[in-house]
């Protein structure tokens, strides 16, 4: 696989940047030609909020081959503070912190390596929100 495949979506994967339909508000992680929800063709680039809450989570035990060495790992459904729902891996959670409703924040982490071609792919994962001093 060539690096371009990862590179095309790197704005989303690194910074949660995507496109929101001006007409219906649907979020698209990759630049769309038409809105998947309403068919409109007008979009604005948005950077999603980096914090939200965990709606549900689970643990992957038998992983797909690209994640074989990473299993077991946690996957969660997160509702970001603007209401957008996205999937993502969870990281840095203690057993106590891991519960539905927990506040989370996105951080940049290594997602996988393509062993044969030496490509390392980074992207966001969610960790428990850390209350940074104001």
């Amino acid at each position, binding site marked *: 696989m060539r690096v371009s*495949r990862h590179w095309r*979506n790197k704005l989303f*994967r690194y910074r949660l940047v995507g496109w929101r339909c001006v007409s219906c508000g649907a979020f698209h*992680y*990759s630049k769309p030609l038409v809105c*998947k929800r309403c068919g409109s063709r007008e979009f604005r680039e948005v950077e999603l909020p980096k914090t939200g809450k965990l*709606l*549900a*989570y*689970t*643990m*992957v*035990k*038998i*992983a*797909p*081959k*690209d*994640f*074989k060495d*990473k299993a077991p*790992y946690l*996957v969660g*459904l997160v509702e970001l503070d603007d209401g957008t*729902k996205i*999937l*993502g*891996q969870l990281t840095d959670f203690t057993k106590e912190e891991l519960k*539905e409703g927990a506040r989370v924040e996105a951080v940049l982490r290594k*997602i*996988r390596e393509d062993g044969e071609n030496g490509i390392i*792919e980074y*992207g966001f994962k969610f960790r428990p929100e850390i209350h940074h001093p104001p």
Partner: protein
Amino acid sequence: MGKVYVAGVGLTKIGEHWDKGLEQLMVEAALKALDDSGLSRVNSIYVGNMAGEFLQEQAHLGAIIAEDLGMVGTPAYRVEAANASGAAAIHAGALEIASGRADAVLVIGGEKLSDGLIEEVSSALLMGERQEYEGFMGADFYSINALLYKLYMRRYEVKDDLIAVFPMLSHKHAKGVAHAQYPFEVSLEKILSSPYISEPLRRFEVSGVGDGAAAIVLIGEELKSKIKTPKTELYISSATDFMTPFEREDPLRFQSLGVAVNKVLDEAKVDRGDVDLIEVHDATSIMAAISLESSGFAEPGESGRLAMRGEFDLGGRLPYNTFGGLKARGNPFGATGVYQVAELHLQLTGRAGKNQVDSPRVGMAQSLGGVGATAIVTLLKAV
């Protein structure tokens, strides 16, 4: 639009066929179906297969199977719609009959998962989701199901036993079925004490890894009057939905399935209440529950209770997965949709042996691609 009939079916036993390749399994099922129909030639061949390009690095299965069947020359393609590939191949074959261009079509679904390592099979299944989204996250098929499972339990305030009842039921019906991968009963206790594959989804709530092929012969009006073999009339409809359940209006409803079921009932001029038996896509326990509810055969959150009450037993109101469904008969991805329709045909022609449902007139098979992004629904009527 011409009518379409099933005139023959062939099944291989599902399991780990170390000694047979994907092509051989498909040929075996196809020859059985042809023998069952009494035909030796067809106008076209449609092959349903999901993962052959990934696990066997083999495309072009249409021409390959035509050759291996000794039918070189016959037009042949492959149709793919993830786990609904077999049903999609039936859809394409049925359209060719309906167009009047063909009077006999052979549809073969086949998959050989045991050629892959366990993580390769997981990757193959993940190809039915978006690689650039779920795939990048490592959010595999089972973890998406697990998230739905949690949302379901929370919304409807039910425990896992009301979901795990579905694999129990499939195993009950698979008992002693010759072509089933797991032809034995499994108690609810055993299911609920099996290890998590992705919490709260347990190992005994998901279909296993198996190889298999199934085939059916479709014919048109003209041949129908000429051949004597038992026949059923076929209707088929299809719809799609958002790829990711969490982008749908309601993640706990397969809208694609609801739409396809309504379309096929409409076309066949049949009421939901007239359906005598149903094949549900129980790739996971939770998908079975959501399927029954999305297609109007149970109220939201109620399917498990109906199952507990015996409504989906072989002798119940709506017999369910009468040969074991994906869970116990087995789920060789691209073959599964063809197994379902072949099994309905055996029921409606009174050839279901000890699993025979009492004089059914109408049967429905539901096939899903991904976590419901594609739904293809077949309805068979006794003739």
